């Protein structure tokens, strides 16, 4: 029973994380390699906010989202001026800086030791001490986040984002400030990544840099690519599928040191296969005038 609740919580966190990633990579076809950085920032803001600053749960979650979104806003200011490969490099550098800070800024993040003892979330007198009540919170946050993102996916904003992904010159010729639109997409995407990070920190009660490694980025990319980039429901289905896919491995007798790499291996093979099958349609190149 506990195991199922654990899986449900995990799926919930990844639903938010992957769907928000889908905004930039899927709708906007912006090859953003910094999404996990936003996730990490969210988790650390919640950890530090609740332990050091004594913020309550709502404050922690909101500020996790906002700090993450603001950092993405700054990154967007630099990276969105760049085209193609340079954009990927810029976002990669940003996410690497965040990882380096998590490991080395020991006075704040405690480095690789991580931050233990993050309190369980509480709302007034309501304390979510056991797993199933925490699942309730996750379900609520997921419902609200996915609801907002669903509206976004159906809105005029998503249409422009998709339009500029295909032909930014034509989008500009229709009076759209492409850079502003992309920056907004970055902002929204990172906001929800921060929220997911906050949930993650509350759930594990302990965070360390290893949860936000670059392999996590590849996993998110796999989810979005498998679900067809830009597809709201596809992303949800592939999140559920891919988070649960390696779980049967647990029931085979494998040492845990092999389990992690094996999961990564499985995900990347899935990624490669799906990319190969859809190579003609995925990420078409921008048209030039």
């Amino acid at each position, binding site marked *: 029973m506990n195991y199922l609740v654990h899986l449900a919580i995990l799926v919930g966190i990844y639903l938010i994380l992957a769907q928000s990633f889908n905004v930039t990579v899927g709708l906007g076809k912006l090859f953003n390699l910094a999404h996990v950085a936003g996730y990490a920032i969210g988790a650390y803001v919640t950890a530090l906010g609740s332990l050091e600053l004594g913020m309550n749960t709502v404050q922690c979650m909101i500020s996790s989202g906002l700090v993450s979104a603001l950092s993405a806003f700054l990154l967007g200011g630099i990276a969105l001026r760049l085209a193609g490969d340079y954009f990927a490099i810029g976002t990669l550098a940003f996410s690497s800086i965040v990882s380096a800070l998590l490991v080395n800024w020991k006075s704040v993040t405690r480095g690789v030791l991580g931050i233990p003892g993050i309190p369980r979330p509480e709302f007034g007198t309501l304390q979510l001490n056991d797993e199933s009540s925490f699942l309730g919170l996750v379900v609520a946050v997921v419902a609200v986040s996915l609801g907002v993102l669903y509206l*976004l996916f159906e809105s005029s904003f998503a*249409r422009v984002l998709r*339009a500029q992904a295909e*032909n930014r*010159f034509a*989008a500009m*010729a229709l009076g*759209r400030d*492409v850079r502003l639109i992309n920056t907004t997409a970055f902002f929204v995407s990172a906001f929800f990544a921060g929220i997911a990070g906050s949930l993650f920190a509350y759930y594990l009660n302990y965070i360390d840099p290893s949860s936000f490694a670059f392999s996590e980025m590849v996993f998110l990319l796999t989810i979005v690519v498998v679900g067809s980039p830009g597809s709201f429901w596809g992303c949800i289905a592939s999140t559920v599928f891919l988070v649960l896919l390696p779980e049967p491995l647990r029931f085979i007798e494998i040492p845990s040191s092999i389990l992690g790499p094996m999961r990564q291996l499985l995900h990347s093979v899935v990624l490669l296969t799906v990319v190969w099958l859809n190579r003609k349609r995925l990420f078409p190149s921008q048209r030039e*005038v």
Partner: protein
Amino acid sequence: MLRVSDLHLQIGDAAILNGVTFSVQRGDTVGIIGPNGSGKTSLFNCLSGFVLPEKGTIHFNDAEITALPPFARAELGIGRVFQSFGIFREMSVLENLMVALEGRTSVWRTLFPWSSSSRAIREEAKDYAAQVGLAQKINHKAGALSGGQMRLLEIIRALAFGAELFLLDEPTAGVSPKMKEEVALLISRVQSLGKTTLIIEHDINFVQSFSKRVIVLDQGRIILEGTPEEMRRNDLLQEIYFGRNMSQAVM
């Protein structure tokens, strides 16, 4: 309405435009012709703001727009139809039109698909699609249309966006002969709505059916200006198009 003076554009080491000066009155239709590489599309890119000229000014409705970003120029009413098709192929016909229409409303009013503004825009988009005979295809991907239909969609999209000045870059390129007529019909409808039009075109006959005035561009300069009739008879033009090398050989 549009005043271009002494426009110079350099890309890399190559001088693309060398002092282009002309102006267009409201409601005019002007054809721009010239051999490949004469700077026609670059001139349009300068007007749209995709490239910034080294020297020279562009005025639109008495306001200087030389340094404005592309989207701001579009908002002022400069529409563009791209030579290589500027439609969004991965999006449906309806969505293509909606992107254009939504440019004029705030994001917040169209955030919810069931809001009255969103529904109004959807209806309007359907209406525009019907005007170019695409009513049956509104939910098809635009990339699945024929060349002629794509062209019609792109022109009507610029109209839906509310462009005042239409920059049409070879509107008949990639269009079957049968559909050419439809494109021509749509352009004359744009004309009759009082819009100003600049057309880049290779086919002088096609240009002639709309415009009383033609500009000839060669090596980034305007070398001739006049009515299509005059152009037809002009020896220099014949030479540029058909036999510069031959005439040089003779000389």
